[in-house]
């Protein structure tokens, strides 16, 4: 086995470690927190000051 092959194995190993780390952390997070909390994010707020015509807000609703 030459040095380059060692480097390739190191790349595979690091990929596996990081991939598994993400996977385990995702599973642990899913278990530790309520689903409603994890998906509680709502689309970005915009400053009230950017709306010139506040009485007619929310044209879509």
């Amino acid at each position: 086995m030459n040095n380059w092959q060692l480097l390739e194995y190191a790349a595979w190993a690091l990929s596996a470690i990081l991939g598994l780390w993400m996977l385990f952390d995702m599973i642990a997070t899913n278990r530790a927190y309520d689903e409603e909390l994890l998906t509680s994010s709502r689309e970005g707020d915009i400053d009230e000051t950017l709306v010139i015509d506040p009485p007619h807000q929310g044209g879509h609703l």
Partner: protein
Amino acid sequence: MSQTTTIHGEKISLLRVLGPAHVWALGVGIVLVGEYMGWNFAVGKGGAIAALIACWAAGLLYTCVAMIDSEVTSTVAAAGGQYAQAKHIVGPLMAFNVGLYLVFAYTMLEAANAITLGYLVQTVGQMAGFADAHDKPFIVLSIIFLAWLNYRGVYATLTVNLILTATAFIAVVVLFTGVKPWSNELLNHKELLNGLPYGWIGVLASLHFGLWYYLGIEGTCQAAEEVRSPARSLPLGTMTGIMTLLIAATMTWYLCSGLMPWEYLGQATTPLFDAARLTSSAPLMVLLFIGTMFSTLASANGCINDASRAWFSMGRDRYLPAWFGAVHPKNRTPFRSIVFLVPVALIFAYFAPLDQVITFSILSGLLEYTYMSMQVIMFRRKWPLDTIKRGYVYPFHPIPAIVLLAICSTTYFAVFLGYGTQLVAMMIFFIVASLWFHFHRYKYVKRGAQFTMNWPRPLGV
């Protein structure tokens, strides 16, 4: 800056920690790799002069994109970028399609970057005497490492992108200075520029790869929910980004076309690195190799950031399963979307040929720009300037929108000349996806909850 992990009451949101420099790094970082490789295939299609015309025509297209994007995104401050804009301005079906364009464009570009990075490392191995060096371990490592970085937090991710992108840009400037553009000592434009070898049809064909100089700058607005001041940072980051790219693209064309004959330049894999080799300067060669590697990493990194935000936003609105709309409570990133897109990118990077991956990325981007030209006209009609305050107002409306539509139409023809089958296949895919969304998926969407902008009622509705 350290990231806080505060959960606001019972809600978790993405973290607002980014500034204009991060927005610049996101946009330019995704694109700058196009200066290091890819743009030069335009030279192969129509000669060096045709590539310069394509460079500036595409530059005009993207200046229109950046201006339009800056105005709209300074009001629609939401992750998902153009997806969120389409949802509020046009409607859900258009938004679903735009979301898919975004995810496709960025994931394919990420795969293309990983393939290139693997190729570069393999080449280094072979040059070092290891004839059986492989690219696959490094393709996989680059995708997973960058996904891990994105998973851990947006501030670190885009700070890394800022360092990578700034270094890669400085490398182009140093090389430009190194070839002494004020003299003919190294550059030989008089001998090397040979007009238009394929005539004007060559110019048209070169437009396809002319997009490569700037493809992805519109990705800046994916950071809308994570910048501290979206109305200021997004236009500033986007406009300085397109200016940086126009300068970098012109410098790249000038020095490469003055050093290499168009027959070689048109099929070179790493034209800027080749240009550095022709100067016979070891420091320049090392710098440009670093620049090539950094630009590839920065692009893949930014693509993971943007694709995951678009996927996350669609999940949050239930255009896709709501499961994807989750935010990590500690890292404050869309962690499920990031992890889900890793195998998608790996499959394309591992099995698909590079030119096909690039073409699908370009086509997705092109569809997105076409929609943007129509969207901004609707935006100005429904919400004139005196109804919503914009962080930036683009000038000469509607001329940039019309110019954008005209250049997009011409570029479709250019793509059709070389990749007609892929163009048709992609259109069929989007029609089938639209039917699926309309007849199946839309019933799960909370109709009112998806529209969140605090805007007045649109005119004419």
